[in-house]
C-alpha cells in the first residue's frame, strides 16, 4: 500500500502516490513520472504547430540586410572613433615625413629612384602595420571596459555582427591611411622623376591587403587577450609573417632534424605569409617589370584564407565570452 499525496496528476487526473510525483518543467504542475514520459505536458501537446510562413524568404532576406546594416553601423562608428584619436594622426605624420625624407638621397641618381620606392613602400608597410596594431587592439577591449558594448549587444546586434563590424572598421582605417600615404608616395615619385610607375599601385594594394589580414588577427587576439598581450602577439606575428620564407629555410639547415624541423614547419604554416604580399623586394632588387595575375591571385587566396580563419575563430570565441 502506497501513501497517497492527495495531489491529482494534470495529465491523467488520478491521484499521485508518494514517489511517483514530478514537476513538469514547462507548466510547473505536479504529474505522474510515467504520464510525463509517455504523454508529455498537455501545454506542449496542445500548443499549435508552427504555421509555415509564406514570407519566409522575404524575412530571411530582411534579416540578412539587417545584419549587413548592423555590421556597417558598427564599422562606421569604429572609423569615426579611431580617426578622432591622437595615435592615428601622429603615426600618419611620421609616415608622411619618412616618405618625403626618402627623396633626399643624392649619392647616385639611379640608386635614388630605388631608394624612394623602397623607403616609401617600407613606410607604408611598417607604419601602416603599427597603425593597424595600435588602433586595432583597443577596438573590442575598450568597448567592454567602458561598458559601451552593453547597449550595442542588447539591441538586435549579434555578437558575430559586432566582431565583423569592428573588423570592417579596422579595414576602413587601414584603407584611409594606406590610401593617403600611397597618393603621397606617387606624387613625390612623379615630382622627382617626372614619371609614373604602375608597379607602385600593385605594391600598395598588396600592402593594404597585408594590413587587412593583420587587422583580422588583431581582432581575433583581442577577443580573448589583454590589450598588452594583443599588442605584443600582433607585433610578433607581423614580424614573423614578414620572415615566412626564411623560417621555412630554417628547416633546410644542416642542424635541423626530427621534431624541431616539424615544429618550425608548423610555426611557419600557422603564421600568415606576409612576405608573399610584400612586392618591395621584387620591384626594387629583382626589377620585376610585370606581376603575373596568377601569382597575385594566389597571394590573395592565401591571405583571404587566413583572414576567414581569424574572423570565424574570433566570432566563436566572442560568442562564448562573458561580458
Amino acid at each position, binding site marked *: 500500500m502506497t501513501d497517497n499525496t492527495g495531489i491529482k496528476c494534470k495529465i491523467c487526473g488520478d491521484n499521485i502516490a508518494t514517489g511517483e510525483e514530478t514537476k513538469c518543467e514547462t507548466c510547473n504542475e505536479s504529474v505522474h513520472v510515467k504520464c510525463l514520459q509517455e504523454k508529455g505536458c498537455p501545454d506542449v501537446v496542445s500548443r499549435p504547430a508552427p504555421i509555415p510562413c509564406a514570407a519566409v524568404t522575404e524575412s530571411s532576406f530582411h534579416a540578412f540586410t539587417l545584419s549587413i546594416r548592423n555590421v556597417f553601423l558598427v564599422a562606421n562608428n569604429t572609423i569615426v572613433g579611431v580617426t578622432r584619436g591622437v595615435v592615428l594622426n601622429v603615426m600618419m605624420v611620421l609616415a608622411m615625413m619618412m616618405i618625403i625624407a626618402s627623396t633626399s638621397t643624392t649619392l647616385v641618381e639611379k640608386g635614388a629612384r630605388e631608394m624612394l620606392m623602397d623607403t616609401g613602400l617600407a613606410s607604408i608597410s611598417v607604419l601602416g602595420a603599427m597603425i593597424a596594431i595600435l588602433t586595432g587592439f583597443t577596438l573590442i577591449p575598450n568597448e567592454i571596459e567602458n561598458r559601451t558594448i552593453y547597449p550595442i549587444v542588447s539591441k538586435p546586434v549579434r555578437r558575430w555582427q559586432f566582431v565583423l563590424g569592428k573588423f570592417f572598421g579596422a579595414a576602413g582605417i587601414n584603407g584611409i591611411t594606406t590610401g593617403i600615404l600611397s597618393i603621397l608616395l606617387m606624387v613625390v615619385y612623379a615630382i622627382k622623376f617626372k614619371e609614373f610607375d604602375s608597379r607602385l599601385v600593385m605594391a600598395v594594394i598588396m600592402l593594404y591587403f597585408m594590413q587587412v589580414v593583420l587587422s583580422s588577427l588583431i581582432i581575433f587576439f583581442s577577443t580573448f587577450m589583454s590589450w598588452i598581450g594583443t599588442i605584443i602577439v600582433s607585433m610578433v606575428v607581423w614580424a614573423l609573417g614578414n620572415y615566412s620564407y626564411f623560417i621555412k629555410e630554417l628547416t633546410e639547415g644542416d642542424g635541423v632534424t626530427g621534431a624541431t624541423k616539424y615544429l618550425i614547419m608548423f610555426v611557419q604554416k600557422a603564421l600568415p605569409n606576409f612576405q608573399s604580399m610584400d612586392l618591395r623586394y621584387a620591384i626594387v*632588387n629583382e626589377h620585376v617589370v610585370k606581376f603575373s595575375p596568377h601569382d597575385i591571385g594566389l597571394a590573395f587566396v592565401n591571405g583571404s584564407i587566413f583572414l576567414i580563419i581569424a574572423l570565424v575563430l574570433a566570432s566563436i570565441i566572442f560568442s562564448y565570452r562573458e561580458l
Partner: protein
Amino acid sequence: MKSLHKKNLILVIVVIALFLIRWPIDNIMTDPATWPYLPKHGEGATFFKSVFSGGAGTPAIFAMLGGQRYMVANIMWSYSDVLFHKGQPFKMVQPLDACVTLNPSFMEAWSTYGWHLAWNLNFEEKDVVRKAKWMRAGIKVYERDLEKNPDKIQPYFDLAWLYLNRTRDYGKALPYLKAIVAPTAIDLYGKTIPNVPNDPSYKFVMLKPGDKGYDLKETSKSPEDQAANNAIVNANESKWRASREGNRLAYTYRKLGVVLYGETKFETDPAKKQALLDAAKLSFTKAIETYKFAGAEINSGNDNLIAIVNMKEVQKGMNNPKWLDSEWDGEKKLRTTYGLPDDPGIDPKVVQ
C-alpha cells in the same frame, strides 16, 4: 545552446579544412623556384648555421628585422651619403657594410662600397701598407658581391673595372668582361655562371646588323636641356651598353697585347719571348674581333665611332714595332703612377 555548440563545431571543422587547404598554397609561395619574388640568398639557413656555430651577429639582425631589414639598409645608405658630403670618408665604411649585409641585392650600394674602398680610401690613405689594404678590401667587397649576385651584370663589371683601371691587371679583368658579353652560360674560375646578359636590370640586348649604335653626340644637340639628354640616354641605354661593354673587352685585349709585348723586354729566353709575342698577336686579333662586335660592323656608316678608330689603329699598329713601343711607354708611365713595377710578370697563357 546545443545548436550553438553544433554550429560552432561545424565552423571549427571548416577552419581546420581551410588551414589544410592553405598548406600547399603556402608551399608555392615559400619556394623561389615557384615564387619569383623571393630573395635568393639563403638567409634563413645561414642564420641557423651561424647561431649554432656561435656567430649570430648579422643573421640575428636579419631575424630581428625580418622583412624590414631593407628599410634599415636604406637608412644606412642615406647615412653614408650624409657622411660623404660631410667629408668623412673613413666613417662611411661601417654603414656601407651594414647596408650590403642587410640587403645583399642592393647593387648600387655594393658598387659604391667597393669603389669607395679601392678608389677614395686608397687615395686618402698616406701609408703605403694601408693603401694596399684598402685596395684588397675593395676587391674583396666585389668578390662578395659576385658571390651573392652571380646572375647580375654589375659585380662582373665592377671587378673588371677595378682590375682594368685601378690595378692595371688586364689578365684578371678579362674573364669578368667575357662573362658580361657571353651570350650563354660560361665557366669562370671553376664556377658555372648563368647567362649574365639576361639580367633584367641590365636590359642588355645584343646588337643586330642594321641597328644603329648609341652616339654620345646626340646629347650635345641641346646641352642645356638635362631632361632631354637623360631621355636620349635612357632610350639608347641598351644599345649603348652593348657597345660599351664590347669596347671595354676590346680595350682589355688591346692593353693585354701591349703588356705581353712589354714583357718581352724583360724576357731573355728566346722561346719564351716568341711565346709572349705570339700571345700578344693573338690578343690584338681578339681586340679587333671584339671591336667589330662592339659597333664597327654595325655602324660602318659612321666613321666617328670610337670602335672603328680603335680597330683601325690596332690593325695598323699590331705589326709595327714603333707603335708597340710607344704604347708600352704609355703603359709603363701609368704603371709608375699607380706604383706598380715595370715588369708586369704576365703569363702568355692568359689569352686563350
